[in-house]
């Protein structure tokens, strides 16, 4: 019971945190905490087998899957915490509170305090006892889960698979396309600018500056741009630096231009 009272508040906090934090990765980590704590509670509830399964399947496999997908999908604007549907958040919270409160009251009313305990049922050990049930009374359900798992695996493969509708572009095709872009739209022919050129930071999150002093957006990784982790490097800063290096230039003008941005 001490374990429970230690973990329960933390789990609730972690769960709330999972819902409110902005970044999906943080949510995943908080969920991992809840799940591991649950595993610990299972251990306390005389369910050593589920304790192991919880850790291995949920925390080990399922959460890893979540993280993989997060990595694949990347981050985008759906991380924004601004609510777009009017009244949705308020109603959700109100209904959630009501629901949780009623459920707690109702269940607390319904559950009797007497506890039979699993000592007798777990007499030969928890795992053999569960095995007796799984391969005895619940054998058909168990066999059905195999069909379910195969179906799920196949379904995931079908969904993840993409049919190639056009022949794969060769290097020659890519080069020709690039030349065509240049001819028709005047697109830059060379490689994309690297970040950090002419900047104070020689870092990937700082965009390169074009000769006129404006930033070259294309020089920063798309993921960083999506996350909003791009540092700004104003032309004024460059000018300021130049002015600092040039003893003949009037300092006042430069500072005005610099603060103008």
């Amino acid at each position: 019971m001490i374990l429970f009272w230690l973990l329960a508040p933390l789990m609730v906090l972690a769960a709330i945190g999972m819902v409110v934090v902005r970044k999906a990765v943080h949510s995943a980590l908080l969920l991992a905490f809840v799940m591991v704590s649950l595993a610990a509670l299972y251990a306390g509830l005389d369910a050593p087998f589920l304790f192991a399964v919880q850790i291995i399947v949920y925390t080990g496999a399922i959460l890893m899957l979540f993280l993989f997908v997060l990595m694949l999908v990347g981050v985008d604007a759906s991380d924004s915490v601004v609510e777009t549907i009017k009244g949705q958040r308020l109603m959700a919270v109100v209904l959630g509170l009501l629901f949780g409160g009623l459920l707690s009251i109702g269940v607390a009313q319904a559950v009797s305090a007497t506890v039979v305990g699993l000592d007798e049922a777990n007499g030969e050990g928890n795992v053999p006892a569960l095995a007796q049930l799984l391969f005895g009374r619940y054998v058909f359900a168990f066999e059905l889960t195999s069909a379910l798992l195969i179906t799920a695996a196949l379904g995931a493969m079908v969904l993840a698979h993409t049919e190639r509708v056009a022949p794969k572009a060769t290097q020659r095709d890519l080069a020709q396309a690039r030349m065509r872009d240049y001819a028709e739209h005047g697109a830059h022919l060379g490689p994309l600018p690297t970040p950090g050129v002419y900047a104070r930071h020689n870092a990937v999150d700082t965009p390169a500056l074009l000769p006129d002093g404006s930033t070259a957006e294309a020089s920063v990784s798309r993921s960083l741009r999506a996350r909003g982790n791009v540092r700004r490097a104003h032309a004024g800063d460059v000018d300021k630096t130049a002015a600092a290096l040039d003893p003949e230039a009037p300092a006042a003008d430069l500072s005005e231009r610099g603060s103008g941005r």
Partner: protein
Amino acid sequence: MTPLISPWLPAEAGGGVPVLPVEAAGTFWWLWLIIALPALGATLLLLGGRLTNPWGHLLGTAMSAGSFGVALVMFVALLGRSEEERQVRQQLWTWLDVGDYTVDMSLLFDPLSAVFVLLITGVGTLIHIYSIGYMAHDERRGRFFAYLNLFVVAMLVLVLADDYLAVFLGWEGVGLASYLLIGFWAHKQSAAVAAKKAFVVNRVGDVGMSLAVMTMVATFSTSSFVGVSAGMPEASSGTSTALGLLLLLAACGKSAQVPLQSWLLDAMEGPTPVSALIHAATMVTAGVYLIVRSNYVYAETPVAQVAVMAVGLVTLLFGAVIGCAKDDIKKALAGSTMSQIGYMTLAAGIGPAGYAFAIFHLLTHGFFKANMFLGAGSVMHAMDDDVDMRHYGALSRAMPITFLTFAAGYLAIIGFPGFAGFWSKDKIIEAAFAEGWVFGVGALLGAGVTAFYMTRVMLMTFISKKRWRSGVHPHESPSVMTVPLVVLGALSAVGGVLLLGGWITGWLEPVTGPEGEHELFVSPFILTSLVTLVVLAGVVVAWLVFGRGELAGTAPQRVSWVTRAARNDLYGDAFNEAVFMRPGQHLVRGLVYLDDTIIDGVVNGVAALVGGSSGQVRRAQTGFVRSYALTMLGGALVAVLATLAVTLA
């Protein structure tokens, strides 16, 4: 002095003659052939379409003539039987079998239907022959003969059926055939309208007929003549009266009696042989047949009898007055038909004393009216289809055969002593006087007016000075047309022989019952002389008005209101229009308005309500999964609340 209207004292209710037929055997096995022959002709001609045009008229005429031949054989066979066995019934098949109500398709050949069959097929055949000439140049001649045959078939079914429902079949068939024939030249607007009018007005009568059949089924569980005649004496007086009046309504429709007379004059739009067929042999006689056939019904209900007589009396004067004012030769004759059928109805209303004379007059009328209509057709043929008598005159020289035969018909209809109409009409007037002097005087007056307008027709058409339009060269019709005229003319002259020795009354006795004695306040001879005097007075007046001096080529407009009313069919159409059509139209408009505003309003309102609210409700369908999930959570919350409420309660 006889009482004013004696049947008001129903001392002698009852005494109807039950129908007790014997099964057909021997010669009578061929009875069905009478109907089958023209039916075959009609079927072949209708199916053959244009292919039959070259020979269709011959087939149609042959079938009609064959039917007449069979009928003649049957008639002779019937003559050879004793009086008790003269009602022959041939069972063909069971038409309807519903619960305990059965309708047999069977034929009843008794003295009454025998007479009718002979008239229909005989005069019908003559009209067929005449039509060969009259319709020679019509491109749909085959179809015309198909319709003629159909008409004959329907009429034969009507008079040969032994069940009121089967009679109704023929009844409707006659209505259909008359519709087809009156509207035969449907390219003329007036013909199409007239056909529709005849059909619609007949429907009113048909309502009476169908209600009568329903009453019979409800009362007697049968509608056969045998069953109804056997059950009538036990029927309540209310049922009898209702049946009598409903049958009278039916008869009014078919026989063009007041108040359902309006279609007859317009029916002149059909080809003239059709008019002859409708007016002489078929159609209009159906009503009289129905009343005479239902004598066992009227025997139980003096009230309906008086109604029949009243209708007959009004119609005979009505038609006579209309006939006086018409310049259209066919319409003048149509008015006279109405009037003569009125005589028959009057006679049929008198009861057993009049039935035989009604049928007798029907026969003689069939001869002389067919004769005169065909004669009128011949005249029209000669005058380039001009029907206005004011454009005729002095045709006796141009077409002597037509003139002579027409004259025979004329003398017959006015009741010139010795001619057919004299015998029959005289007997009816006599019987009417015996029934009540109101009817007698009315019938007598009608005879005088008949003499007046028929003389007018005669004078304007054949005698007076030429008023021909330019380019008209009258000529005698071909012999295929004149031969039937001659035959009918002869019959018009000598048709009275049927009365010799009271043959016709004796012949019909198995059907209508014994004639009975009627007392007259004067001797029959004096009455006959009186009738003849009145007729002569009518002729003289007509001669004074139309026989001397010039006749205007167009109808004079400055005339008395009586003439104007008569020209307008005594405002029969105006009456119908004002009493039935206009209120009907207003009612329909009101109903349409009701339908458009209130009923449609409710329907549209409900639809608009549903549509509008749906338009609002669908806004909840935002497409956001999270909104839906919120709703689900709300639902789950309600479920938890309900569970808790149930558990804690």
